[in-house]
């Protein structure tokens, strides 16, 4: 196997930075190029070839050509606001950023592998949804119930499909990850699970499914080495009811009637609770489960933690940290 040259977008975020660390430790990886407008952690900044650029700059094409990478990992797909990615930028970064990145990579002759950190939010959270979505069930035409992020994910996957058609020599993998939880990761969902009271919808106890943060890095690394054409669900197998998850985390549920949920969540965000997107609100009401057979079978990735174990591990990590 020739030495690998890998480009990572969003190298300053949790997934980009940790994936860069993991790949740099791989023997066959020659160079990691990181693109981000933000500064990654010092050790990552020192070890990767850093390109301080926005995915939407016209120079991107020249920059990517010069890098002569064989793999592009698109990790700059923020579901939630993060430092340097404000709420109103999310759509722009996800859709326009992906569009530009793929356009710039289209005539890169050395490219063989594309890995995109997608999201299982593409399926939405619906009361009558199948208990375990399989990869062929992502809606094609999104109706009025779809959230902004859900539509963005649909658009992103369409862009990747188009790219895969134009470049049959490149294996394009989209990882549809369930919400990632962990003791170091900062997302509204991890912050919610850490807050002393967790707002839940009165009378609803949805089945939730999560992915442990170490598995979310491992799966990206795995896909770089063993890509699989198409979309793959990524989650800790199994599912757990939200109430059982909250109990395992040692937290208390604060039931709020659905019509008041938006108002209470809004007030909560002023009191230090994380702001909740429409996706999160629907996830907390109806939950979501995905089938993981394609992940364990065709992709050949077995997460270290199933959903129940992931919740337990995070609960223990947080308890130890206190």
């Amino acid at each position, binding site marked *: 196997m020739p030495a690998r040259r890998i480009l990572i977008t969003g190298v300053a975020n949790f997934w980009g930075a940790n994936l860069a660390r993991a790949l740099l430790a791989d023997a066959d990886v020659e160079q990691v190029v990181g693109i981000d407008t933000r500064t990654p952690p010092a050790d990552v900044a020192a070890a990767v070839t850093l390109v301080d650029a926005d995915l939407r700059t016209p120079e991107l094409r020249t920059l990517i050509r010069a890098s002569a990478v064989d793999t592009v990992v698109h990790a700059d797909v923020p579901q939630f606001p993060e430092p340097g990615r404000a709420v109103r930028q999310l759509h722009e970064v996800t859709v326009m950023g992906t569009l530009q990145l793929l356009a710039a990579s289209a005539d890169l002759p050395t490219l063989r592998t594309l890995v995109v950190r997608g999201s299982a939010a593409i399926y939405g959270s619906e*009361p009558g949804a*199948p208990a*375990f979505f399989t990869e062929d069930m992502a809606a094609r035409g999104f109706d009025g119930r779809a959230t902004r992020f859900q539509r963005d994910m649909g658009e992103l996957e369409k862009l990747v499909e188009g790219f895969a058609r134009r470049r049959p020599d490149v294996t394009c993998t989209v990882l549809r990850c369930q919400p990632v939880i962990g003791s170091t990761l900062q997302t509204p969902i991890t912050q919610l699970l850490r807050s002393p009271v967790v707002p839940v919808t009165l009378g*609803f106890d949805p089945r939730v499914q999560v992915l442990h943060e170490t598995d979310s890095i491992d799966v990206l690394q795995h896909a770089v080495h063993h890509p699989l054409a198409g979309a793959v669900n990524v989650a800790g197998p199994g599912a757990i009811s939200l109430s*059982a998850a909250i*109990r395992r985390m040692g937290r208390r549920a604060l039931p709020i009637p659905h019509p008041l949920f938006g108002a209470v969540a809004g007030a909560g965000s002023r009191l230090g609770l994380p702001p909740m997107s429409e996706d999160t609100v629907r996830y907390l009401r109806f939950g979501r489960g995905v089938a993981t057979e394609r992940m364990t079978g065709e992709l050949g990735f077995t997460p270290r933690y199933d959903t129940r174990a992931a919740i337990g591990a995070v609960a223990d990590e947080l308890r130890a940290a206190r």
Partner: protein
Amino acid sequence: MTLGQTLGRLRTLLSAPAGEDAWGHDPAFVRAVQPALDVLYDRWWRITATGAEHLPDSNPPTRALIAANHAGVVPWDGAMIATAIRRNVGRDVRSLVLDWAFELPWASTAIRRSGGVPASPHNALRLLEEDHLVLVFPEGAKGISKPYSERYRLQRFGRGGFVETALRAQAPIIPCAVVGSEEIHPKIAEAPGLAKLLRAPYLPITPTFPLLGPLGAVPLPSRWRIEFCAPVDLSAYGPDAAADRRLVLELSDAIREQIQAKVFENLIKREGAFL
């Protein structure tokens, strides 16, 4: 039952589930509600169940799709069939439930913990492939919401999706006839405007509802019979037969006719509807 036991059960009902599976089915929850269901089964509706020898038992657990007629405005028939199965072969049946129920607070949670799942063919297929007993009402909302004047007349079985699923999963279909469920809430009219407003699939008017308010939600104490028929073995067709529309509709019609005949047979055996 002692007060302590009752409180213990209440605690199980209200607390987070401990032993649930990936579908959200929680056997502890089922055990906690069972005494209440037993009272309805034995005292209120005085149910006679026959044909239990046709149900596959749990050593080893094998798959089967149970298809029953649906009636009575409120789906008590599902809970009573589940009770009959639990008593006879000790297995928790997984019911395919109208999607709308999962939009309801509390009910959605209780249904899921009791083993109910949204009525999607994907769910049905996966449950069967995991060797569960699955209960389906092929008439769907059409059966449960029909007026009292049409009692014991089975509605259409849609496009026979349940047969398709059974063929694909290579599961036998066990037809099941229920008598008594029609009389629990005799629907004399409907309020479609209000139903639309509440986003409910239907809103019934019965002799007691909404006239008596919440009391109208109490089902009438009719006498019930439940009969499980001999399994319809589909293994001769093979899973690819699921794509054969004509075969699917033929099988679906045959099963519908068998359930209809068994419903009439049990109506005669039952004698009095209430006494």
